[in-house]
Protein backbone atom coordinates (compact mmCIF):
# COMPACT_ATOMS: atom_id res chain seq x y z
CA UNK A 1 0.00 0.00 0.00
CA UNK A 2 2.64 2.48 1.15
CA UNK A 3 4.95 1.13 -1.50
CA UNK A 4 2.37 1.70 -4.20
CA UNK A 5 1.84 5.31 -3.11
CA UNK A 6 5.60 5.81 -3.17
CA UNK A 7 5.89 4.48 -6.68
CA UNK A 8 3.00 6.69 -7.74
CA UNK A 9 4.57 9.81 -6.29
CA UNK A 10 7.91 9.04 -7.86
CA UNK A 11 6.33 8.35 -11.25
CA UNK A 12 4.81 11.81 -11.16
CA UNK A 13 8.13 13.37 -10.10
CA UNK A 14 9.97 11.58 -12.90
CA UNK A 15 7.46 12.64 -15.51
CA UNK A 16 7.81 16.21 -14.25
CA UNK A 17 11.59 15.90 -14.34
CA UNK A 18 11.42 14.64 -17.89
CA UNK A 19 9.32 17.63 -18.84
CA UNK A 20 11.42 20.33 -17.15
CA UNK A 21 13.20 21.47 -20.33
CA UNK A 22 9.84 21.64 -22.12
CA UNK A 23 7.95 23.50 -19.39
CA UNK A 24 10.75 25.75 -18.22
CA UNK A 25 13.55 25.69 -20.74
CA UNK A 26 15.50 28.50 -19.15
CA UNK A 27 19.20 27.56 -19.14
CA UNK A 28 19.54 28.34 -15.45
CA UNK A 29 16.99 25.71 -14.56
CA UNK A 30 18.25 23.16 -17.00
CA UNK A 31 21.79 23.73 -15.81
CA UNK A 32 20.79 23.30 -12.17
CA UNK A 33 18.77 20.38 -13.51
CA UNK A 34 21.79 18.70 -15.08
CA UNK A 35 23.76 18.93 -11.84
CA UNK A 36 20.77 17.80 -9.82
CA UNK A 37 20.21 14.77 -12.03
CA UNK A 38 23.90 13.87 -11.88
CA UNK A 39 23.79 14.12 -8.11
CA UNK A 40 20.57 12.11 -7.92
CA UNK A 41 22.22 9.20 -9.69
CA UNK A 42 25.53 9.63 -7.87
CA UNK A 43 23.77 9.71 -4.50
CA UNK A 44 21.71 6.65 -5.45
CA UNK A 45 24.91 4.91 -6.46
CA UNK A 46 26.55 5.87 -3.20
CA UNK A 47 23.55 4.59 -1.30
CA UNK A 48 23.51 1.44 -3.40
CA UNK A 49 26.84 0.49 -1.97
CA UNK A 50 27.46 2.47 1.23
CA UNK A 51 23.85 2.71 2.30
CA UNK A 52 23.11 -0.96 1.72
CA UNK A 53 26.35 -2.40 3.05
CA UNK A 54 27.11 0.10 5.82
CA UNK A 55 30.58 0.76 4.42
CA UNK A 56 30.62 4.55 4.32
CA UNK A 57 32.77 5.69 1.42
CA UNK A 58 33.92 9.28 1.25
CA UNK A 59 36.09 8.53 -1.75
CA UNK A 60 33.47 8.26 -4.49
CA UNK A 61 35.07 11.35 -5.97
CA UNK A 62 37.63 8.91 -7.38
CA UNK A 63 35.00 7.48 -9.70
CA UNK A 64 33.56 10.84 -10.57
CA UNK A 65 37.00 12.13 -11.47
CA UNK A 66 37.95 8.97 -13.33
CA UNK A 67 34.77 9.23 -15.40
CA UNK A 68 35.46 12.89 -16.13
CA UNK A 69 39.02 12.23 -17.25
CA UNK A 70 38.11 9.07 -19.15
CA UNK A 71 35.60 10.88 -21.34
CA UNK A 72 37.93 13.78 -21.95
CA UNK A 73 41.07 11.78 -22.68
CA UNK A 74 39.25 9.41 -25.04
CA UNK A 75 37.44 12.19 -26.86
CA UNK A 76 40.69 14.07 -27.35
CA UNK A 77 42.81 11.08 -28.31
CA UNK A 78 40.22 9.88 -30.80
CA UNK A 79 39.96 13.43 -32.19
CA UNK A 80 36.20 13.29 -31.86
CA UNK A 81 34.25 16.11 -33.40
CA UNK A 82 32.52 18.37 -30.88
CA UNK A 83 29.08 16.84 -31.26
CA UNK A 84 26.52 14.77 -29.42
CA UNK A 85 28.43 11.63 -30.40
CA UNK A 86 30.64 12.20 -27.41
CA UNK A 87 27.72 11.15 -25.23
CA UNK A 88 28.43 7.59 -26.34
CA UNK A 89 31.56 7.78 -24.26
CA UNK A 90 29.52 8.22 -21.07
CA UNK A 91 28.91 4.49 -20.47
CA UNK A 92 32.48 3.76 -21.48
CA UNK A 93 33.73 6.27 -18.92
CA UNK A 94 31.52 4.55 -16.35
CA UNK A 95 33.07 1.25 -17.28
CA UNK A 96 36.57 2.61 -16.78
CA UNK A 97 35.57 3.95 -13.37
CA UNK A 98 34.20 0.51 -12.56
CA UNK A 99 37.50 -1.09 -13.52
CA UNK A 100 39.37 1.37 -11.31
CA UNK A 101 37.07 0.33 -8.47
CA UNK A 102 38.43 -3.21 -8.48
CA UNK A 103 41.94 -2.55 -7.12
CA UNK A 104 40.56 0.29 -4.98
CA UNK A 105 38.02 -2.06 -3.47
CA UNK A 106 40.53 -4.83 -3.10
CA UNK A 107 42.57 -2.68 -0.74
CA UNK A 108 39.81 -0.76 0.97
CA UNK A 109 37.18 -3.43 1.43
CA UNK A 110 39.31 -5.72 3.52
CA UNK A 111 39.57 -3.31 6.42
CA UNK A 112 37.03 -2.70 9.16
CA UNK A 113 34.32 -0.28 8.29
CA UNK A 114 35.61 2.47 10.59
CA UNK A 115 38.91 2.35 8.83
CA UNK A 116 37.21 2.05 5.47
CA UNK A 117 35.85 5.59 5.75
CA UNK A 118 39.28 7.01 6.17
CA UNK A 119 41.09 4.80 3.71
CA UNK A 120 38.66 5.91 1.01
CA UNK A 121 39.66 9.48 1.77
CA UNK A 122 43.34 8.54 1.56
CA UNK A 123 42.94 6.71 -1.74
CA UNK A 124 40.97 9.65 -3.04
CA UNK A 125 43.93 11.93 -2.47
CA UNK A 126 46.25 9.47 -4.17
CA UNK A 127 44.11 9.75 -7.28
CA UNK A 128 43.96 13.51 -7.12
CA UNK A 129 47.73 13.69 -6.77
CA UNK A 130 48.21 11.28 -9.64
CA UNK A 131 46.00 13.44 -11.83
CA UNK A 132 48.28 16.34 -11.00
CA UNK A 133 51.43 14.42 -11.77
CA UNK A 134 50.69 12.33 -14.84
CA UNK A 135 51.16 13.86 -18.24
CA UNK A 136 48.19 12.22 -19.98
CA UNK A 137 45.88 14.03 -17.59
CA UNK A 138 47.37 17.34 -18.60
CA UNK A 139 48.79 17.81 -15.10
CA UNK A 140 47.58 20.82 -13.22
CA UNK A 141 46.57 22.58 -16.43
CA UNK A 142 43.85 20.00 -16.95
CA UNK A 143 42.24 19.16 -20.28
CA UNK A 144 39.52 20.66 -22.40
CA UNK A 145 37.03 18.21 -23.88
CA UNK A 146 35.52 19.22 -27.23
CA UNK A 147 32.67 21.66 -26.77
CA UNK A 148 29.68 21.40 -29.12
CA UNK A 149 28.71 24.55 -30.93
CA UNK A 150 25.08 24.55 -29.84
CA UNK A 151 23.12 27.70 -29.15
CA UNK A 152 22.85 29.03 -25.62
CA UNK A 153 19.18 28.64 -24.91
CA UNK A 154 18.95 24.94 -25.68
CA UNK A 155 22.59 24.03 -25.10
CA UNK A 156 21.84 22.29 -21.80
CA UNK A 157 18.96 20.15 -23.02
CA UNK A 158 20.95 17.23 -24.49
CA UNK A 159 23.02 17.08 -21.30
CA UNK A 160 19.84 17.16 -19.30
CA UNK A 161 18.32 14.21 -21.12
CA UNK A 162 21.48 12.14 -21.04
CA UNK A 163 21.75 12.77 -17.30
CA UNK A 164 18.06 11.87 -17.02
CA UNK A 165 18.59 8.62 -18.90
CA UNK A 166 21.49 7.72 -16.62
CA UNK A 167 19.28 8.48 -13.64
CA UNK A 168 16.48 6.22 -14.87
CA UNK A 169 19.01 3.45 -15.47
CA UNK A 170 20.44 3.99 -11.98
CA UNK A 171 17.10 3.91 -10.24
CA UNK A 172 16.06 0.74 -12.02
CA UNK A 173 19.44 -0.84 -11.27
CA UNK A 174 19.38 -0.17 -7.55
CA UNK A 175 15.68 -0.82 -7.25
CA UNK A 176 16.35 -4.23 -8.77
CA UNK A 177 19.30 -4.80 -6.48
CA UNK A 178 17.23 -4.01 -3.43
CA UNK A 179 14.91 -6.78 -4.49
CA UNK A 180 17.59 -9.27 -5.43
CA UNK A 181 19.39 -11.76 -3.27
CA UNK A 182 22.53 -9.72 -3.87
CA UNK A 183 20.82 -6.74 -2.25
CA UNK A 184 19.71 -8.90 0.65
CA UNK A 185 23.29 -9.95 1.16
CA UNK A 186 24.52 -6.37 1.15
CA UNK A 187 21.98 -5.54 3.83
CA UNK A 188 22.95 -8.61 5.82
CA UNK A 189 26.58 -7.44 5.66
CA UNK A 190 25.51 -4.08 7.03
CA UNK A 191 23.83 -5.69 10.03
CA UNK A 192 26.43 -8.32 10.89
CA UNK A 193 29.16 -9.03 8.42
CA UNK A 194 30.79 -11.89 10.29
CA UNK A 195 27.51 -13.64 10.76
CA UNK A 196 26.65 -13.23 7.10
CA UNK A 197 29.99 -14.74 6.18
CA UNK A 198 29.26 -17.58 8.54
CA UNK A 199 26.04 -18.23 6.67
CA UNK A 200 27.89 -18.70 3.43
CA UNK A 201 27.61 -15.18 2.02
CA UNK A 202 30.63 -14.42 -0.19
CA UNK A 203 31.19 -11.22 1.67
CA UNK A 204 34.19 -9.75 -0.12
CA UNK A 205 32.84 -10.48 -3.58
CA UNK A 206 29.42 -9.10 -2.75
CA UNK A 207 30.91 -5.89 -1.36
CA UNK A 208 33.21 -5.63 -4.33
CA UNK A 209 30.38 -6.01 -6.79
CA UNK A 210 28.36 -3.34 -4.98
CA UNK A 211 31.35 -1.04 -5.00
CA UNK A 212 31.97 -1.60 -8.71
CA UNK A 213 28.35 -0.96 -9.69
CA UNK A 214 28.38 2.18 -7.60
CA UNK A 215 31.57 3.28 -9.35
CA UNK A 216 30.06 2.61 -12.77
CA UNK A 217 27.16 4.96 -12.19
CA UNK A 218 29.29 7.61 -10.49
CA UNK A 219 31.77 7.49 -13.37
CA UNK A 220 28.99 8.18 -15.85
CA UNK A 221 28.00 11.19 -13.77
CA UNK A 222 31.56 12.49 -13.83
CA UNK A 223 31.74 12.04 -17.58
CA UNK A 224 28.60 14.11 -18.15
CA UNK A 225 29.93 16.74 -15.75
CA UNK A 226 33.23 17.06 -17.65
CA UNK A 227 31.55 17.30 -21.03
CA UNK A 228 29.05 19.81 -19.71
CA UNK A 229 31.53 22.09 -17.95
CA UNK A 230 33.97 21.79 -20.82
CA UNK A 231 37.04 21.35 -18.70
CA UNK A 232 38.70 18.90 -16.31
CA UNK A 233 41.15 19.92 -13.60
CA UNK A 234 42.56 17.68 -10.89
CA UNK A 235 41.03 19.71 -8.10
CA UNK A 236 37.56 19.98 -9.61
CA UNK A 237 37.26 16.57 -11.24
CA UNK A 238 38.69 14.87 -8.16
CA UNK A 239 36.76 17.07 -5.78
CA UNK A 240 37.07 16.08 -2.10
CA UNK A 241 33.71 17.66 -1.41
CA UNK A 242 31.97 15.39 -3.92
CA UNK A 243 32.24 12.33 -1.69
CA UNK A 244 30.85 14.07 1.34
CA UNK A 245 28.12 15.75 -0.72
CA UNK A 246 26.60 12.52 -2.01
CA UNK A 247 26.80 11.10 1.51
CA UNK A 248 25.04 14.13 2.96
CA UNK A 249 22.34 13.99 0.33
CA UNK A 250 21.70 10.35 1.09
CA UNK A 251 21.58 10.85 4.83
CA UNK A 252 19.33 13.83 4.36
CA UNK A 253 16.85 11.79 2.35
CA UNK A 254 17.25 8.55 4.27
CA UNK A 255 20.12 6.11 4.00
CA UNK A 256 19.42 2.59 2.83
CA UNK A 257 16.14 3.49 1.16
CA UNK A 258 15.56 3.78 -2.57
CA UNK A 259 13.85 7.17 -2.41
CA UNK A 260 16.16 8.71 0.18
CA UNK A 261 19.14 9.62 -1.99
CA UNK A 262 16.85 10.70 -4.83
CA UNK A 263 14.90 13.02 -2.60
CA UNK A 264 18.02 14.24 -0.84
CA UNK A 265 19.74 15.24 -4.06
CA UNK A 266 16.56 16.62 -5.58
CA UNK A 267 16.17 18.98 -2.65
CA UNK A 268 19.73 19.73 -1.66
CA UNK A 269 21.43 20.48 -4.95
CA UNK A 270 18.98 23.23 -5.94
CA UNK A 271 18.87 24.53 -2.38
CA UNK A 272 22.63 24.68 -2.22
CA UNK A 273 22.90 26.51 -5.51
CA UNK A 274 20.14 28.84 -4.48
CA UNK A 275 21.70 29.54 -1.09
CA UNK A 276 25.06 30.21 -2.66
CA UNK A 277 23.56 32.71 -5.03
CA UNK A 278 21.53 34.36 -2.31
CA UNK A 279 23.87 34.42 0.65
CA UNK A 280 27.33 33.94 -0.68
CA UNK A 281 28.50 37.33 0.38
CA UNK A 282 30.16 36.88 3.72
CA UNK A 283 29.92 33.10 3.78
CA UNK A 284 26.47 33.26 5.32
CA UNK A 285 25.45 30.38 3.14
CA UNK A 286 27.95 28.09 4.89
CA UNK A 287 26.27 28.83 8.18
CA UNK A 288 22.76 28.35 6.85
CA UNK A 289 23.71 25.14 5.08
CA UNK A 290 25.41 23.79 8.20
CA UNK A 291 22.49 24.75 10.42
CA UNK A 292 20.01 23.14 8.05
CA UNK A 293 21.97 19.94 8.36
CA UNK A 294 22.10 19.99 12.11
CA UNK A 295 18.36 20.51 12.22
CA UNK A 296 17.71 17.55 9.99
CA UNK A 297 20.15 15.31 11.80
CA UNK A 298 18.76 16.19 15.20
CA UNK A 299 15.10 16.05 14.36
CA UNK A 300 15.07 13.46 11.64
CA UNK A 301 18.13 11.37 12.37
CA UNK A 302 17.14 8.70 9.90
CA UNK A 303 16.50 11.15 7.08
CA UNK A 304 13.36 12.48 5.44
CA UNK A 305 11.92 9.36 3.88
CA UNK A 306 11.93 7.09 6.96
CA UNK A 307 10.76 9.96 9.15
CA UNK A 308 7.83 10.63 6.87
CA UNK A 309 7.10 6.91 7.09
CA UNK A 310 7.18 7.12 10.88
CA UNK A 311 4.74 10.01 10.89
CA UNK A 312 2.36 8.15 8.62
CA UNK A 313 2.50 5.13 10.89
CA UNK A 314 2.03 7.32 13.94
CA UNK A 315 -1.05 8.93 12.46
CA UNK A 316 -2.45 5.58 11.39
CA UNK A 317 -1.98 4.06 14.82
CA UNK A 318 -3.64 7.06 16.42
CA UNK A 319 -6.61 6.86 14.11
CA UNK A 320 -6.92 3.16 14.76
CA UNK A 321 -6.73 3.74 18.48
CA UNK A 322 -9.46 6.29 18.35
CA UNK A 323 -11.70 3.91 16.43
CA UNK A 324 -11.31 0.98 18.79
CA UNK A 325 -9.98 1.79 22.19
CA UNK A 326 -9.96 -1.83 23.17
CA UNK A 327 -6.51 -2.92 21.97
CA UNK A 328 -3.34 -1.38 23.27
CA UNK A 329 -1.20 -0.08 20.44
CA UNK A 330 1.79 -2.14 21.48
CA UNK A 331 0.01 -5.41 20.92
CA UNK A 332 1.71 -6.22 17.69
CA UNK A 333 5.27 -5.71 18.72
CA UNK A 334 5.64 -7.95 21.76
CA UNK A 335 4.60 -11.49 21.28
CA UNK A 336 6.29 -14.04 23.47
CA UNK A 337 6.49 -12.63 26.98
CA UNK A 338 9.89 -13.22 28.19
CA UNK A 339 11.84 -12.42 31.35
CA UNK A 340 14.81 -11.06 29.49
CA UNK A 341 12.70 -9.01 27.13
CA UNK A 342 14.88 -5.94 27.35
CA UNK A 343 18.17 -7.66 26.67
CA UNK A 344 18.25 -6.76 22.95
CA UNK A 345 19.05 -3.17 23.77
CA UNK A 346 22.31 -4.28 25.32
CA UNK A 347 23.25 -6.58 22.48
CA UNK A 348 22.65 -3.90 19.89
CA UNK A 349 24.97 -1.65 21.77
CA UNK A 350 27.67 -4.24 21.64
CA UNK A 351 27.68 -4.69 17.89
Amino acid sequence: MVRRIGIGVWSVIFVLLALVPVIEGNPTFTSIGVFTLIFMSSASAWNGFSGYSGYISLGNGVFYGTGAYALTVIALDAHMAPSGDIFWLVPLAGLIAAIIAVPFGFIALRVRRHTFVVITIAIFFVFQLLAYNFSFTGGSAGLLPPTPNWVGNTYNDPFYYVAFAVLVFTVLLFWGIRRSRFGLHLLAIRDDEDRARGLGVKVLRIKMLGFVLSAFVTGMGGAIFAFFIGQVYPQYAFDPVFGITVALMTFFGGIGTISGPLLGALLLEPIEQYLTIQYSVGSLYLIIYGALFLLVILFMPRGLVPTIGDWRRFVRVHLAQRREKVLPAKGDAVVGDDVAGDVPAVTTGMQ
Partner: protein
Amino acid sequence: MLLGIIDGILTGGVYALMASGLTLIFGVMEVISVAQGIFVILGAYLSYSLEAHFGIDLFLGLFITIPALFIVGIAVEWAFLRRLKAQERIAMSILVTYAVFLIIEGVLNIVYGTNYFALHAWYVTQSVELFGVYLSYIYIFGFLLAAGLLAALYVVLYRTRFGASVRAAMQDRTAASLVGVDVRRVSTITFGIGTAVTAAGGMIYGATNSFNANSAEDLISRLLVIVVLGGLGSIGGALAAAVLMLVIEDVVAVVWSPDWATVIFFLALVAVLSIRPVGLFGRQAARAQ
Protein backbone atom coordinates in the same frame (compact mmCIF):
# COMPACT_ATOMS: atom_id res chain seq x y z
CA MET B 1 68.37 14.28 4.55
CA LEU B 2 69.18 14.74 8.23
CA LEU B 3 67.33 18.01 8.03
CA GLY B 4 64.33 16.27 6.51
CA ILE B 5 64.28 13.78 9.34
CA ILE B 6 64.60 16.40 12.06
CA ASP B 7 61.98 18.62 10.46
CA GLY B 8 59.72 15.61 10.13
CA ILE B 9 60.08 14.66 13.76
CA LEU B 10 59.49 18.17 15.04
CA THR B 11 56.44 18.93 12.92
CA GLY B 12 55.29 15.36 13.39
CA GLY B 13 55.05 16.00 17.12
CA VAL B 14 52.62 18.83 16.54
CA TYR B 15 50.51 16.81 14.15
CA ALA B 16 50.56 14.00 16.68
CA LEU B 17 49.08 16.34 19.26
CA MET B 18 46.24 17.37 16.97
CA ALA B 19 45.66 13.78 15.90
CA SER B 20 45.74 12.44 19.45
CA GLY B 21 42.59 14.40 20.20
CA LEU B 22 40.90 12.84 17.20
CA THR B 23 41.98 9.33 18.06
CA LEU B 24 41.00 9.70 21.71
CA ILE B 25 37.56 10.91 20.70
CA PHE B 26 37.20 8.00 18.35
CA GLY B 27 38.40 5.49 20.90
CA VAL B 28 35.98 6.54 23.59
CA MET B 29 32.98 7.67 21.60
CA GLU B 30 33.20 5.90 18.25
CA VAL B 31 32.87 9.33 16.74
CA ILE B 32 34.93 10.68 13.87
CA SER B 33 35.18 14.41 14.33
CA VAL B 34 35.87 16.02 10.96
CA ALA B 35 35.54 19.33 12.79
CA GLN B 36 38.99 18.74 14.27
CA GLY B 37 40.60 20.68 11.40
CA ILE B 38 38.45 23.75 11.87
CA PHE B 39 39.02 23.64 15.65
CA VAL B 40 42.74 23.85 14.93
CA ILE B 41 42.16 26.91 12.78
CA LEU B 42 39.82 28.36 15.39
CA GLY B 43 42.59 27.91 17.96
CA ALA B 44 45.02 29.67 15.65
CA TYR B 45 42.67 32.61 15.16
CA LEU B 46 42.07 32.89 18.88
CA SER B 47 45.81 33.01 19.52
CA TYR B 48 46.06 35.64 16.83
CA SER B 49 43.36 37.81 18.38
CA LEU B 50 44.87 37.58 21.84
CA GLU B 51 48.28 38.50 20.48
CA ALA B 52 47.13 41.24 18.16
CA HIS B 53 44.56 42.94 20.38
CA PHE B 54 45.80 42.32 23.89
CA GLY B 55 49.48 41.68 23.29
CA ILE B 56 49.30 38.32 25.01
CA ASP B 57 52.20 36.04 24.16
CA LEU B 58 51.27 33.04 22.05
CA PHE B 59 52.26 30.49 24.67
CA LEU B 60 50.66 32.41 27.54
CA GLY B 61 47.57 32.78 25.44
CA LEU B 62 47.16 29.01 25.56
CA PHE B 63 45.96 29.38 29.13
CA ILE B 64 42.95 31.10 27.63
CA THR B 65 42.54 29.30 24.33
CA ILE B 66 42.83 25.77 25.69
CA PRO B 67 39.97 26.22 28.19
CA ALA B 68 38.01 28.09 25.52
CA LEU B 69 38.22 25.21 23.08
CA PHE B 70 37.53 22.75 25.87
CA ILE B 71 34.24 24.55 26.40
CA VAL B 72 33.51 24.62 22.68
CA GLY B 73 34.11 20.88 22.58
CA ILE B 74 31.84 20.21 25.51
CA ALA B 75 29.13 22.36 23.99
CA VAL B 76 29.28 20.52 20.68
CA GLU B 77 29.18 17.15 22.38
CA TRP B 78 26.35 18.14 24.66
CA ALA B 79 24.28 19.83 21.98
CA PHE B 80 24.68 17.36 19.15
CA LEU B 81 26.81 14.28 19.55
CA ARG B 82 25.21 12.79 22.61
CA ARG B 83 21.91 12.78 20.81
CA LEU B 84 23.16 10.30 18.24
CA LYS B 85 21.91 6.75 18.41
CA ALA B 86 24.27 3.82 18.58
CA GLN B 87 23.36 2.65 15.11
CA GLU B 88 25.12 4.52 12.32
CA ARG B 89 26.93 6.43 15.02
CA ILE B 90 30.12 6.83 13.02
CA ALA B 91 28.44 7.96 9.86
CA MET B 92 26.12 10.33 11.70
CA SER B 93 29.00 11.77 13.68
CA ILE B 94 30.81 12.59 10.46
CA LEU B 95 27.74 14.48 9.28
CA VAL B 96 27.20 16.36 12.52
CA THR B 97 30.80 17.42 12.83
CA TYR B 98 30.88 18.36 9.16
CA ALA B 99 27.93 20.65 9.77
CA VAL B 100 29.74 22.14 12.76
CA PHE B 101 32.77 22.55 10.54
CA LEU B 102 30.76 24.47 7.93
CA ILE B 103 29.22 26.76 10.50
CA ILE B 104 32.52 27.60 12.17
CA GLU B 105 34.15 28.13 8.77
CA GLY B 106 31.38 30.54 7.84
CA VAL B 107 31.70 32.43 11.11
CA LEU B 108 35.48 32.67 10.81
CA ASN B 109 35.17 33.93 7.25
CA ILE B 110 32.85 36.65 8.44
CA VAL B 111 34.90 37.62 11.47
CA TYR B 112 38.40 37.43 10.04
CA GLY B 113 37.82 37.65 6.31
CA THR B 114 39.56 35.40 3.84
CA ASN B 115 43.06 36.91 3.89
CA TYR B 116 45.85 34.69 5.07
CA PHE B 117 47.03 35.21 8.63
CA ALA B 118 50.19 34.18 10.40
CA LEU B 119 51.19 34.37 14.04
CA HIS B 120 54.24 36.41 14.92
CA ALA B 121 56.62 36.36 17.85
CA TRP B 122 60.38 36.48 18.20
CA TYR B 123 60.68 32.71 18.46
CA VAL B 124 58.81 32.27 15.20
CA THR B 125 61.64 33.68 13.13
CA GLN B 126 64.76 33.05 15.23
CA SER B 127 66.63 29.83 15.25
CA VAL B 128 69.47 27.97 16.84
CA GLU B 129 72.18 25.94 15.20
CA LEU B 130 72.40 22.30 16.23
CA PHE B 131 74.52 19.64 14.54
CA GLY B 132 75.14 21.96 11.64
CA VAL B 133 71.47 22.57 10.92
CA TYR B 134 69.36 25.52 11.90
CA LEU B 135 66.34 24.77 13.99
CA SER B 136 63.75 27.39 14.59
CA TYR B 137 62.72 27.98 18.16
CA ILE B 138 59.07 27.68 17.27
CA TYR B 139 59.59 24.14 16.01
CA ILE B 140 61.50 23.22 19.14
CA PHE B 141 59.06 24.94 21.48
CA GLY B 142 56.16 23.51 19.56
CA PHE B 143 57.59 20.05 19.76
CA LEU B 144 58.24 20.42 23.49
CA LEU B 145 54.75 21.74 24.05
CA ALA B 146 53.27 18.88 22.08
CA ALA B 147 55.40 16.37 23.96
CA GLY B 148 54.45 17.93 27.27
CA LEU B 149 50.75 17.87 26.50
CA LEU B 150 50.94 14.32 25.21
CA ALA B 151 52.73 13.31 28.39
CA ALA B 152 50.06 15.05 30.44
CA LEU B 153 47.43 13.22 28.47
CA TYR B 154 49.23 9.98 29.17
CA VAL B 155 49.35 10.69 32.88
CA VAL B 156 45.66 11.53 32.91
CA LEU B 157 44.81 8.35 31.06
CA TYR B 158 46.98 5.96 33.00
CA ARG B 159 47.34 7.47 36.45
CA THR B 160 43.95 8.87 37.33
CA ARG B 161 40.57 7.51 38.15
CA PHE B 162 39.08 9.47 35.29
CA GLY B 163 41.66 7.96 32.98
CA ALA B 164 40.65 4.50 34.10
CA SER B 165 37.04 5.29 33.17
CA VAL B 166 38.17 6.57 29.80
CA ARG B 167 40.14 3.44 29.12
CA ALA B 168 37.25 1.30 30.24
CA ALA B 169 34.95 3.14 27.88
CA MET B 170 37.46 2.68 25.07
CA GLN B 171 37.48 -1.05 25.63
CA ASP B 172 33.76 -1.49 25.69
CA ARG B 173 31.18 1.22 26.29
CA THR B 174 28.50 -1.18 27.42
CA ALA B 175 30.68 -3.09 29.80
CA ALA B 176 32.06 0.15 31.22
CA SER B 177 28.59 1.42 31.96
CA LEU B 178 27.75 -1.88 33.62
CA VAL B 179 30.62 -1.50 36.06
CA GLY B 180 29.50 1.98 37.03
CA VAL B 181 31.36 4.26 34.65
CA ASP B 182 29.27 7.27 33.66
CA VAL B 183 29.97 6.83 29.96
CA ARG B 184 28.09 9.95 28.97
CA ARG B 185 30.09 12.19 31.26
CA VAL B 186 33.32 10.52 30.20
CA SER B 187 32.38 11.07 26.56
CA THR B 188 31.63 14.73 27.09
CA ILE B 189 34.89 15.37 28.89
CA THR B 190 36.85 13.33 26.37
CA PHE B 191 35.42 15.35 23.52
CA GLY B 192 36.32 18.49 25.44
CA ILE B 193 39.91 17.32 25.92
CA GLY B 194 40.19 16.12 22.34
CA THR B 195 39.08 19.54 21.17
CA ALA B 196 41.16 21.46 23.71
CA VAL B 197 44.44 20.05 22.41
CA THR B 198 43.69 21.69 19.06
CA ALA B 199 44.21 25.07 20.72
CA ALA B 200 47.86 24.23 21.23
CA GLY B 201 48.11 22.53 17.84
CA GLY B 202 46.44 25.50 16.20
CA MET B 203 48.81 27.98 17.79
CA ILE B 204 51.85 26.11 16.51
CA TYR B 205 50.22 25.54 13.15
CA GLY B 206 49.46 29.24 12.88
CA ALA B 207 53.01 30.15 13.83
CA THR B 208 54.56 27.82 11.27
CA ASN B 209 52.07 28.25 8.41
CA SER B 210 49.90 31.06 7.21
CA PHE B 211 46.27 30.11 7.29
CA ASN B 212 42.68 31.03 6.64
CA ALA B 213 39.49 29.18 7.44
CA ASN B 214 39.86 27.13 4.30
CA SER B 215 43.13 25.59 5.52
CA ALA B 216 41.03 23.30 7.71
CA GLU B 217 40.17 21.12 4.73
CA ASP B 218 43.76 20.12 4.06
CA LEU B 219 44.36 19.63 7.74
CA ILE B 220 41.53 17.28 8.43
CA SER B 221 42.39 14.89 5.63
CA ARG B 222 45.93 14.62 6.97
CA LEU B 223 44.81 14.16 10.54
CA LEU B 224 42.42 11.41 9.51
CA VAL B 225 45.16 9.64 7.63
CA ILE B 226 47.48 9.83 10.64
CA VAL B 227 44.82 8.46 12.91
CA VAL B 228 44.06 5.54 10.64
CA LEU B 229 47.69 4.72 10.02
CA GLY B 230 48.36 4.75 13.74
CA GLY B 231 45.32 2.69 14.50
CA LEU B 232 42.04 4.28 15.53
CA GLY B 233 41.97 4.86 19.25
CA SER B 234 45.68 4.53 19.81
CA ILE B 235 47.49 7.65 20.99
CA GLY B 236 50.92 6.06 20.68
CA GLY B 237 49.93 5.05 17.19
CA ALA B 238 48.97 8.61 16.34
CA LEU B 239 52.35 9.80 17.53
CA ALA B 240 54.24 7.20 15.54
CA ALA B 241 52.12 7.73 12.43
CA ALA B 242 52.41 11.50 12.53
CA VAL B 243 56.16 11.41 12.81
CA LEU B 244 56.40 8.71 10.16
CA MET B 245 54.19 10.67 7.80
CA LEU B 246 56.07 13.91 8.13
CA VAL B 247 59.48 12.22 7.96
CA ILE B 248 58.58 10.27 4.83
CA GLU B 249 57.16 13.35 3.16
CA ASP B 250 60.04 15.56 4.13
CA VAL B 251 62.72 13.08 3.18
CA VAL B 252 61.15 12.20 -0.15
CA ALA B 253 60.66 15.89 -0.83
CA VAL B 254 64.34 16.57 -0.23
CA VAL B 255 65.96 13.58 -1.87
CA TRP B 256 63.57 13.04 -4.74
CA SER B 257 60.67 15.31 -5.50
CA PRO B 258 58.18 17.20 -3.39
CA ASP B 259 55.66 16.49 -6.08
CA TRP B 260 55.70 12.78 -5.33
CA ALA B 261 56.28 12.98 -1.60
CA THR B 262 52.61 12.91 -0.71
CA VAL B 263 51.91 10.15 -3.20
CA ILE B 264 54.65 8.02 -1.67
CA PHE B 265 53.23 8.55 1.75
CA PHE B 266 49.72 7.64 0.71
CA LEU B 267 51.00 4.56 -1.06
CA ALA B 268 52.84 3.59 2.12
CA LEU B 269 49.60 4.02 4.00
CA VAL B 270 47.74 1.83 1.56
CA ALA B 271 50.49 -0.78 1.80
CA VAL B 272 50.41 -0.80 5.59
CA LEU B 273 46.65 -1.05 5.69
CA SER B 274 46.47 -3.89 3.21
CA ILE B 275 48.85 -5.88 5.39
CA ARG B 276 47.55 -4.64 8.72
CA PRO B 277 44.00 -3.36 8.36
CA VAL B 278 43.84 -2.08 11.93
CA GLY B 279 46.78 0.29 11.45
CA LEU B 280 50.16 0.20 13.09
CA PHE B 281 49.05 0.09 16.69
CA GLY B 282 45.36 -0.60 16.41
CA ARG B 283 43.79 -3.24 18.54
CA GLN B 284 42.31 -6.20 16.75
CA ALA B 285 38.60 -5.63 16.47
CA ALA B 286 36.96 -7.11 19.49
CA ARG B 287 34.35 -9.52 18.29
CA ALA B 288 30.94 -9.62 19.81
CA GLN B 289 32.00 -12.97 21.22
